[in-house]
């Protein structure tokens, strides 16, 4: 089998995010970037399938974005992925989820993957659109937000468990298919030191616009039908008002404030 895992470099959840001067991007200065946590589940699941099958299955990690994408690809290789592809080109900048999915689908298609795994969403922009759009471009079935994945013995179908309101849903997919991974699917491994040493020797393949077979009009900002107009910081939390007095006084004052100041009663 060939398994493609999609990984994205995102700001660490503990980083303090600052909006850049242009108002439509994040200032990367001082931000620590890590592999999108949901993508870690995807890498782990790909590696577990490979280890279970014990055949010539290969896991290829693919990341699209700026140069720092190389770091998450190196992490995926250190975890045990066989190959890595970095999809990067100035023309790809400013693309929305659909334009990026178009590029990724074009890059993945010639790989003839049996299974494409990604995170259920990237924790930076939370769109959760790129993976499903890739499946659409490739015209393959998809199961999203999956907590359990089983391959049939003949490797022709996969059964995915999805958490839905009030229960679980089991979906059978014919392969090739795309699956996005949710917390609970597995426990991602740490990159071992021997894994890191092996990763150092592996080459990360660069793929740009020319290799994708697409035109500049189909990708990046030019190929996008939506664009970010502005980022806003969350409004600062206003000061908390403490109401003094005994319970009766407090209750009375609270009702007055809710009516006259907050105007919610």
């Amino acid at each position, binding site marked *: 089998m060939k398994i493609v895992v999609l990984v994205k470099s995102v700001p660490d959840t503990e980083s303090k995010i600052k909006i850049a001067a242009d108002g439509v991007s994040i200032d990367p200065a001082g931000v620590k970037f890590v592999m999108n946590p949901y993508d870690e589940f995807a890498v782990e699941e790909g590696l577990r399938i490979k280890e279970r099958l014990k055949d010539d299955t290969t896991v290829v990690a693919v990341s699209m974005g700026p140069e720092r994408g190389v*770091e998450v690809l*190196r*992490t995926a290789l*250190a975890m045990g992925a066989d190959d890595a592809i970095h999809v990067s080109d100035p023309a790809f900048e400013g693309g929305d989820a659909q334009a990026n999915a178009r590029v990724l689908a074009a890059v993945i298609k010639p790989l003839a993957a049996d299974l494409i795994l990604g995170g259920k969403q990237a924790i930076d922009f939370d769109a959760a659109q790129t993976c499903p759009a890739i499946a659409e471009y490739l015209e393959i079935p998809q199961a999203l937000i999956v907590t359990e994945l089983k391959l049939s013995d003949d490797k022709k179908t996969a059964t995915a468990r999805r958490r839905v309101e009030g229960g679980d849903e089991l979906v059978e997919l014919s392969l090739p298919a795309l699956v996005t991974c949710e917390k609970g699917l597995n426990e991602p491994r*740490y*990159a*071992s*030191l*021997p894994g*890191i*040493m092996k*990763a*150092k020797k592996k080459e990360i393949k660069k793929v740009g616009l020319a290799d994708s077979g697409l035109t500049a009009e189909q990708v990046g900002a030019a190929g996008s039908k939506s664009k970010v107009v502005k980022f806003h910081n969350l409004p600062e939390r206003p000061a908390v008002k403490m109401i003094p007095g005994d319970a009766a006084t407090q209750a009375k004052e609270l009702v007055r404030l809710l009516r006259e100041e907050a105007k919610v009663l």
Partner: protein
Amino acid sequence: MQFPLTEEHRLIQETARNFADNEIAPVADRHNREGSFPLELVKRLGELGFMGMLVPEQYGGTGLGNLPLVVALEEVNRVDASTGVTMSVQNSLVCAPIVHFANETLKQKYLPKLASGAFLGAYALSEPGSGSDAAGLVSSAVKDGDSYVLNGTKNFITTGAEADIVVAMVRTDPNHKTRGITAFILEKGWKGFSVGKKEEKLGLRSSSTVQLVFEDLRVPAANIVGELGLGFKIAMHTLDGGRIGIAAQAVGIAQACLDASVKYAEEREAFNQPIGRFQAVQFKLANMATKLEAARLLVYNAARLKDEGQPHGKEAAMAKLFASEMSNEAAREAVQIHGGAGYLEDFPVERYFRDARITEIYEGTSEIQRIVIARHLLKGLR
């Protein structure tokens, strides 16, 4: 100057940091309070390759070297100095002398198990009557056919209770002080080998420190590391490397002190503002961060010199001396910034304060480090 860490170093740091934060940190307080050895975590560190960083690949290690080792040690020590010293001892005091001095048979026999963490090891030099005066050791080995019969007591042995093997320095010739010492590899199950008193310590409470007792312990002559009489040289060479690891431990503890202090200074309010707005607190943090960075660079540099095969005895001593004293200052200031809260078990700086203290003592006291440095300076007086 940002010390040039490579992509590979960054990945090692990331794995060490994630493992430390996700696996060690959540249980460190409990293990330290109970005084229980975190065997499962230590084994998992071994499985990830953190116990064989100085062991060449052909013996089951990664052979990554001292710079990656200190990078990883800092991360582990940042969350738990007890686990940190276990890792440092295994790499620098147990694996390293076997790699450098043991014959092929011993390397094949012991290194793969040590590098994977399947075996834990200890290093036994100190005795009840000899610490800094290491060559004053009196435990003895007497030749009897193809083996030696060992008698004596070893003190303050880190991981001694859990160790599967021990690299022990024993006197084989009473007539030569330094050249009369030989290094042996001992195995736990051998008759005459026993674990004595478990020490209750100020800090590092979840690392194991015990006395080892040898009573007519029969060791095959084949288990001599290097050759007869080479033990003191092996011990001193080994400690030069171990010192860099302890210096990294001191840096890790200090980083934890700084992190906790910054967090507290931003959260704790006094006189209607976060205490981090007071210059008295700001200056403490600035001093801590600056000295910490200086210590880290000394440690990196000593590790780099050792990896390049250059003389590093003086630099290792300087790194250990500066980092350990810096760490204690950082721990003291961290408690001070926390005020009364810093004196309580509820806040982590209380543990850091206790853990930092040993770094000025073991693997050569600060006084010994100064002597080592001075001897390098005053070569004309020899």
